[in-house]
């Protein structure tokens, strides 16, 4: 219990950052993502990746190389009190809602969306690695760029970190397109993959795991721990050190803090925690407001 409560999602030395088992077990691994049975088997071995469990979507032998580059990148990053953590900030102006907004504003946004689904759904990276990739963007670039540009950045970063593409290849491709003037992208058809992606869109993933006994119960007073991890976390800054009440137990879920950095799923109970706005914002709080935040158990301590 004490261990749990004093847990801090720190980055250890490189050897403690466990890449997926398939990599540890065999150096560079190869995952056939075509046949569901083989895919499932491989999923068993990708113990540290949160990937879609609904089957195979790929007709390709995908080579995964050891995550050296990814891990080095993570180790170099010590800045995760990032600009993405926006709750409670001032200065961004009024909310600008667009009438009759299209789903995508530009053809390239549509492509980025499709590429993201196609690559994540094939298990090339998990959702926490995806979010962590965005959080590692330069903060100025983050604020200046649009949502789908964030996606482009993290998809590229994750595919490079996993060794599926190389940055020089990408740069060469970009130079070639610029030179050609017409910027024609080659076409490739794979109806089976298309069908699988649609199926996944409608089936989804499952982030819940075998239930663990929760340490807290509805009505317990808890304090959000004051942690400032240098890597990914889903504990917003505005709630750290603040006291709230457990509203209910949500179930046992994969932990993003570890899953984002190759340290495994490490499932924990998640709670809906209710905070009085006055306890978050003091005198500046608007009246008669409460904020609910879903929090993993290790984000909390008894209050």
């Amino acid at each position: 219990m004490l261990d749990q409560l004093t847990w801090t999602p720190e980055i250890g030395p490189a050897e403690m950052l466990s890449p997926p088992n398939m990599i540890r077990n065999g150096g560079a691994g190869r995952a056939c993502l075509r046949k569901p049975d083989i895919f499932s088997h491989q999923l068993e071995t990708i113990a540290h990746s949160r990937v879609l469990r609904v089957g195979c979507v790929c007709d390709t032998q995908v080579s995964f190389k050891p995550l050296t580059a990814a891990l080095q990148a993570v180790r170099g990053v010590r800045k995760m009190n990032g600009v993405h953590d926006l709750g409670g900030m001032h200065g961004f102006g009024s909310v600008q809602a667009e009438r009759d907004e299209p789903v995508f504003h530009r053809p390239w946004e549509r492509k980025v969306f499709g590429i993201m689904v196609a690559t994540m759904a094939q298990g090339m990276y998990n959702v926490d690695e995806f979010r962590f990739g965005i959080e590692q963007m330069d903060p100025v670039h983050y604020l200046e760029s649009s949502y789908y540009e964030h996606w482009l950045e993290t998809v590229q970063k994750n595919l490079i970190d996993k060794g599926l593409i190389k940055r020089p290849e990408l740069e060469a491709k970009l130079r070639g397109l610029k030179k050609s003037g017409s910027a024609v992208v080659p076409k490739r058809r794979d109806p089976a993959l298309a069908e699988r992606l649609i199926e996944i869109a409608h089936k989804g993933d499952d982030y819940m795991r075998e239930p663990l006994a929760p340490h807290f119960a509805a009505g317990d007073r808890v304090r959000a721990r004051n942690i400032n991890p240098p890597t990914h976390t889903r504990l917003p800054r505005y709630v750290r050190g603040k006291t709230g009440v457990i509203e209910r137990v949500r179930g046992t879920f994969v932990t993003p803090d570890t899953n984002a950095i190759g340290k495994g799923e490490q499932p924990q109970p998640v709670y809906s925690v209710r905070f009085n706005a006055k306890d978050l914002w003091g005198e500046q709080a608007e009246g008669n407001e409460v904020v609910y935040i879903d929090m993993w158990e290790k984000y909390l301590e008894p209050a």
Partner: protein
Amino acid sequence: MDKGSTHGHHPQPLPDVALRVKALEALLIDKGLIATDAVDKVAEAYEKDIGPLNGAKVVARAWVDPAYKGRLLKDATAAIAELGFSGMQGEHMVVVENTDKVHNMVVCTLCSCYPWPVLGLPPVWYKAPAYRSRAVIEPRAVLREFGLELDDTREIRVWDSSAELRYMVLPRRPAGTGGMSEQRLAKLVTRESMIGVAEANTPGKARKGA
């Protein structure tokens, strides 16, 4: 904008980001990691099939069927699946009900988590820093910008989607809709009302935003 414009004989250069996307797509196709039809079809699904009309059907059903509403508030994922809606970013759904005493609104301060199977992909304002920063600290001021003035006696509950739970608001059924069919009721349910930055439309008001 995205395609090289051909004014006269001097094509405009593509914006850098559009070119970078093309470079990534071309490289992934060269390597056989993705396919054009797969990328396009999944995007098309969110343009044509998976959008806020799904959520509107869920809300309208809850308005006319108390037993369904009970199931929806108890186990939203299962109740929503009864109407055929499920999938990515809606695996673990929670529906929160607006009443005369309580108003709910949903935000994701850390990124832009949003219940795709019922609301589709999020609008730009939901993903932008203004909404994400302010919804938790001054929700009433944000609601005023959407034209919704909340009575001080009505508690406001803000749901920050920080984990894998995804939230949808069940708005109050508008007055004067007593005899309306489920199909007509669904037309009153806007995307904004299911995020909780608006009430559902009243019968005289044209549908907007959904």
